[in-house]
């Protein structure tokens, strides 16, 4: 449930609103549920509200870990096939 997508904050607007960008599409959403959002942050948007800030570092770490795991798995598989 709860379709939510990552979007970049490109402008802070009055009344706790902010403009976000998704691949060239811009839309005003409420940032009122978050604190200290700055332009350039990525946030998770759900029904017009930003629900959380996305951490670029964590994203990178996760992806790196997955890729590492994938390579190991790849080797493993090859090993199995060979075996």
């Amino acid at each position, binding site marked *: *449930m709860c*379709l939510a997508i990552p*979007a970049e904050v490109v402008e802070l607007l009055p009344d706790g609103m902010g403009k976000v960008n*998704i691949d*060239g*599409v*811009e839309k005003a959403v409420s940032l009122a549920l978050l604190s200290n959002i700055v332009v350039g942050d990525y946030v998770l948007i759900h029904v017009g509200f930003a629900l959380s800030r996305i951490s670029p570092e964590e994203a990178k770490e996760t992806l790196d870990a997955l890729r590492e795991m994938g390579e190991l798995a790849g080797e493993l598989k090859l090993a199995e096939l060979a075996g």
Partner: protein
Amino acid sequence: MNEQPRRRDTRLFPRPLDIANGRVDMTHGGGGRAMAQLVSEIFGQAFDNEFLSQGNDMAVMPPADGRLVMSTDGYVISPLFFPGGDIGSLAVHGTINDVAMSGATPLYLSASFIIEEGLPLADLRRIVLSMADASRAAGVPIVTGDTKVVERGKADGVFISTAGVGVLADGLEIGGDRIQEGDAILVSGSIGDHGIAILSKRENLDFETAIESDSAPLHRMIRAMVEAEPEIHCLRDPTRGGLAATLNELANQSGVGLVLEEEALPIKPAVRGACELLGIDPLGVANEGKLLAFCPKDKAEALLAVMQAAPFGSDAAIIGHVVADPLKLVRLETSFGSERVVEWLNGEQLPRIC
């Protein structure tokens, strides 16, 4: 509009229409002098051509050589003006395209206007001039028309129904029931642009994007295509309901299965972005200047080259192929490497939360 595309006769119409400030009111649909003036000063002047100028309730044109082709569509778009076009140009392009999808050369258009009382005359003129431009650019004149005015709250600005007549050369047999196993599926350019451009301007949905409607006349591309490759099995424009609806319709009509490759689908990033924002599938989003073509696989590359060289075809691509399938499903091989069914849902896609 019906009958009188003349210059203003100052004895008949003492004052010109007040286009800057005026609005369509009920007298403009009453069949009297006010209507004649509206027809003359807005429609007649813009569309001006030898057939419309006959000034009758119908137009008489020379004999046509070949099978007759006829099509009609109603245009009810809101907003009336949108990035990349307006209801007027759309009503010209859409019907030209439907006639042309048979392989025919579109010859003539008719236009029936249903106007909501209160429409600014300036808006009406802008729409009509846009239709006139579109019709002239396409070389397909609007030869006859009609105007009705309904009370406020009984229409939505203006509705336009166009009908088109064309002529089909011998030897061409193109239709939704002629698709064959082994055919390649081609699309003439990026998909979803029209629908996203419209949604971006909808009240309570408005978002900003550089995406414009792809509304365009495709008859010249089609002429080039049928000349180069008379063995085209089917042409269809994926309008309402987008690729998803059109392909399902065709799969059912021809009794085949269709397989698309997600990687091959030309979709602009902003169209993808808007679809993610709204929770909708770009395959279900409307197009107004695109066509799907089906031809034997071995002719596909040559046909693609013709399309890419034609107006509005530079982004054409081969996007899939036709298979035997008693279930007549449309499947998508995703970039991810999986396969899914492309459903034929109600095309009125709406923002979802989940």
